């Protein structure tokens, strides 16, 4: 489904602020798999997701999606294959448009937009059904501007919009991070339902060890722009939040050792 071949991305290259965000990351996703990505701050997990989404072009490597080489496709062209939910609840919806208008925009994701009427009656009745399934009472507020909704409601709608047309790949970028615990739990339950129902291939970044342990069927741990662990199958199922924290601790200790060792070597030989 998704084949990422040793992608490299360096920001501000050639300047003192050079950042090696991705140093040769490869990952292949089977159709219908749900892969969780965790990592320390600056590990490149969000950058990896953004590279797949096409927010920038990678310096090296290739990205294939649904049998097509999308490495040089601009962001808006990849949207034909990808549904996305962002960390910021404000990013996924258009605040001054109504719920209906937002949904009808999503109903043409990746398709041509001409002078056709945006609100067909069949579409509107489908909207009512789908929105009422969110159990948020929004089906009676379809004419309200999205700007008047809470963050949790917006994220639920964004998820609905991202999956309105079945995407080849669903990207979830810490989509519960900005929500209160209750809304986050609701959104996670909704996400599980949608992913299972449509058998979506999903790539999800999270900072929650609990989510990382309980969701998905594969877990990737990233550090300094590389994949350092890849848990699959039974191994993934056995993982507990504490195991993950232990792995992070390991990484941190190795890091400290690296730095002190490097310092020692520098003092001796330079």
């Amino acid at each position: 489904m998704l084949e990422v071949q040793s992608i490299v991305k360096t920001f501000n290259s050639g300047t003192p602020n050079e950042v090696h965000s991705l140093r040769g990351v490869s990952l292949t996703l089977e159709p219908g798999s749900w892969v969780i990505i965790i990592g320390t701050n600056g590990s490149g997990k969000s950058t990896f997701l953004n590279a797949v989404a096409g927010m920038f072009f990678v310096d090296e490597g290739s990205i294939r999606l649904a049998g097509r080489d999308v490495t040089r496709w601009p962001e808006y062209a990849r949207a034909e294959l990808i549904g996305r939910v962002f960390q910021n609840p404000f990013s996924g919806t258009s605040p001054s448009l109504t719920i209906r208008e937002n949904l009808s925009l999503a109903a043409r994701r990746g398709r041509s937009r001409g002078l056709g009427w945006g609100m067909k009656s069949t579409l509107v009745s489908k909207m009512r059904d789908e929105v009422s399934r969110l159990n948020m009472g929004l089906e009676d507020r379809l004419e309200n501007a999205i700007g008047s909704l809470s963050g949790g409601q917006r994220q639920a709608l964004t998820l609905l919009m991202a999956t309105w047309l079945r995407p080849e790949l669903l990207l979830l970028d810490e989509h519960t991070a900005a929500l209160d615990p209750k809304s986050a739990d609701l959104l996670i339950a909704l996400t599980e339902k949608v992913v299972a129902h449509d058998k979506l291939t999903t790539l999800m970044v999270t900072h929650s060890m609990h989510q990382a342990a309980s969701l998905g069927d594969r877990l990737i741990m990233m550090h300094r722009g590389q994949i350092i662990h890849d848990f699959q199958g039974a191994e993934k199922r056995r993982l507990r939040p504490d195991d993950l924290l232990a792995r992070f601790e390991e990484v941190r200790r190795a890091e400290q050792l690296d730095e002190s060792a490097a310092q020692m070597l520098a003092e001796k030989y330079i």
Partner: protein
Amino acid sequence: MSLLIGTFTIGFILSLLALGVFISFRIFAFPDITADGSITLGASVAATLLVHGVSPPLASLAAFGAGMVAGACTGTLHTRFKINSLLSGILVMTALYSINLHVMGRSNVPLLSVTTLATQAERIGLGVTRGVTSFNLAGWDVSVRDASVLCAIAFAVALTGTLLYLFLRTNLGMAMRATGDNVQMIRALGVNDATMIVFGLAISNGFVALSGSLLAQYQGFADVGMGIGMVVWGLASVIIGEALVGSNQVGLTLVGAVMGSVLFRLMVAVALRWGLSPNDLKLITAVFVFFALITPQFLRKARLRSAHA
């Protein structure tokens, strides 16, 4: 009375300018200065074509098209060559000054003995009243010519406004509105936002140029300096309109922009009547827009302060 009708007529004509400014400033949040040049472009293209015997509706349509090209240039400078939005507009506006002179061949073109939309409307009006040139309205003497021009322009504005409203509710129109609202989201839904901006600015400047062509036909000449300060004028109308309707619904904001334009023109007429020097008009307009822009922040701060107290 004739003065009042004239005020309304110009208010309606410039409401097309306000609709154009509404598209760029409000829908796309793009401060598009091109309008200062494209309103003159519309006037000069229409005037030149009319002098060469082209029919008035066709000349007005050509003006709309010329405006679209100007807007598309600004949009392309901004999206393709990554030039700052204000500077893109300034570049095109500056270039348009020379282009307008070339189109007209000199600095102004009189339309005194030419058939225009205004003279056509007058002829239709006189036909309806069978040659009677004035009638009595609630004690006022009203010229049939003036009244028919006003009716024609009100009709034209209602028509173009409705078309714009319908357009903004199509799939394409909604994508344009969302582009100005949330670029990240619209890209994620597969829309090329650069194309939307180019196209949106084209439509915006089409409206502005159409407004210019009607203004030339109404006042009987096109002049190379007629566009100076028009963006601010349009912006003032849009701001007044927003205050009048106080709603974010698309249809109402469009109606508001038209009402704002007429009301603003009335305010100007009253001020001139009270002895404001025409030379001070642009200054007063600028000061007005300044206050209209800072008042919301000021009110918010005052409200915060009273909430803390």
